[in-house]
């Protein structure tokens, strides 16, 4: 009888320690039981020659030609934070960064308490998101048809939309229109950024800033996009791949 009692006691102790050990482990992914929500602020900003830049502001490109961006929207999806101890947690399915809306470039997102050292997200939408019916989402949802990002003729989403004007012939007038709209499953890129370690606590909201460098979009590692000779893309053509590749390279990330 005593042997049975001892065995039972041993088993209960084992269970107790096993559960303690579980609690001490860092969260390692989606749906983890230790997801205690706090917040991070995710901010997107637009830069030119190292300075903040806003829509409709006239700046010179690397060839000294005046340009201005009038519309800029892009999707980021499947946003994950990377735990310092290893593992990741998904904090958001999809966001639409829309510089044309006052609140379109800053988001408060629930995130589990923890220490992190990296962020990853998809530039664009994954295949499942891209196959969504945009009329089924509430008006304010990033995938709603009311966001005007849906290509109705092709029944898929534009991942990135960038429209503007430039002075193509040096006459001082911004009369050359350019328009780069890209979206296709093949254009979906997952980007991963290492950062200095940052903490998410109940009363501490760190900021994760995604910086977009306008220069690198036109003069990027995937090639030059001359707004005069290559002024548009509205399909999955070589320009769309170059544009999307440059756009991905033009993104950097910092935390504070």
């Amino acid at each position: 009888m005593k042997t049975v009692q001892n065995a039972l006691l041993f088993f209960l102790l084992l269970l107790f320690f096993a559960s303690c050990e579980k609690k001490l482990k860092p969260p390692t992914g989606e749906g983890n039981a230790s997801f205690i929500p706090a917040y991070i602020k995710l901010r997107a900003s637009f830069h030119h020659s190292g300075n903040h830049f806003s829509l409709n502001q006239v700046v010179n490109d690397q060839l000294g030609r005046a340009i201005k961006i009038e519309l800029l929207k892009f999707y980021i999806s499947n946003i994950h934070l990377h735990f310092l101890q290893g593992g990741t947690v998904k904090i958001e399915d999809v966001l639409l960064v829309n510089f044309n809306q006052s609140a379109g470039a800053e988001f408060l997102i629930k995130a589990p308490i923890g220490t992190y050292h990296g962020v990853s997200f998809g530039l664009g939408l994954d295949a499942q998101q891209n196959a969504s019916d945009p009329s089924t989402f509430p008006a304010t949802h990033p995938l709603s048809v009311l966001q005007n990002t849906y290509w109705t003729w092709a029944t898929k989403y534009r991942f990135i939309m960038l429209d503007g004007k430039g002075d193509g012939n040096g006459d001082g007038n911004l009369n050359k229109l350019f328009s780069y709209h890209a979206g296709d499953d093949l254009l979906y890129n997952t980007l991963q950024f290492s950062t200095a370690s940052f903490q998410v606590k109940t009363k501490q909201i760190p900021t994760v800033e995604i910086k977009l460098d306008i220069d690198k979009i036109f003069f990027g590692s995937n090639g030059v996009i001359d707004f005069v000779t290559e002024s548009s893309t509205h399909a999955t053509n070589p320009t769309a791949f170059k544009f999307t590749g440059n756009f991905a390279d033009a993104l950097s990330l910092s935390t504070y």
Partner: protein
Amino acid sequence: MKRLLTILILFTACKKAAEKKTFIASEGDYQYHLTIPKGFPLPLIPVDNELTESRVLLGKTLFYDPILSLDSSVSCATCHRLNLAFTDGQELSKGIVNRTGIRNTPTLTNIAYAFSLMFDGGAETLELQALAPIADHNEMNSDMNLVIERLKKNKKYISLFKKAYQREPDAFGITRSIAAFQRTLISGNSPFDKYYFQGDTTALSASEQRGMKLFFSESLACSECHSGFNFTNNHFENNGLYTVYADAGRARITNLSSDVGKFKVPTLRNAEYTSPYMHNGSFSSLEEVIAHYASGGKNHVNKSVLLKGFNISETEKQDLIHFLKSLSDKEFLSNKNFIP
């Protein structure tokens, strides 16, 4: 006594009519009674858009209302006219401020049975397709935000949306209801149908019967693509119209070079009323269409192997045209259920 008898007869008649209706509790509405012609299968109805009377009514009302276009000048019915089997008689569709579209308006005859929509198959469902003309620069050039704002100010629409979808006017209700209405546009009572599916051996003339034989013959191979009860295999084919295509066709969607110049095979039902033909309306008559296929078409790497050309006499050509015209369903073309 006589009056009582009349009331009793009326009551019985009403009861009988009411009995035919099926109430769908989950939708809070009566099921729309779709009459399926003999020989036709049941069309696939999406689970989130069961056909109900209120939905079809809302869709029909929107279909004929220019409220969907930017300047309120163009409705779906501007290009899809009932008496032309829901086409418009134009080479290329016309939109607001007389803008010209890039393609010929396709018929909506039996559109419930289509596997993909538009000449390039850009939309896979009628619900998704409904978004395209509203946004298209050359068609309605509108914005869904604007459309919804207008509809929300309209008491009639507020009531229709509530009844149909238990919600305020929104993109979901707009796309669902227009799709629901379009699924009712079923045509299956042509002389051919009466002859072939309904057993009326007198429904086709001798010339039409000879034309039918030619149509289904191996030498002409028309029915290789225009097959089945709806006279389409629902595939995309390059029919040798050009050696170089200004319109990439299916490749616009797939970006595949093997799809260049391929367009959806249209139904031939009511073809008598859907001229001009082809994706760009380049043939104005059935005679021109037959002459093109008889020639075998122009060379293109993607041209269908079925296009080999053929020789037929003038009488045979007339027989073939008579058969094609026997696919016209006059009841469909004047069906009052399809107009508000």
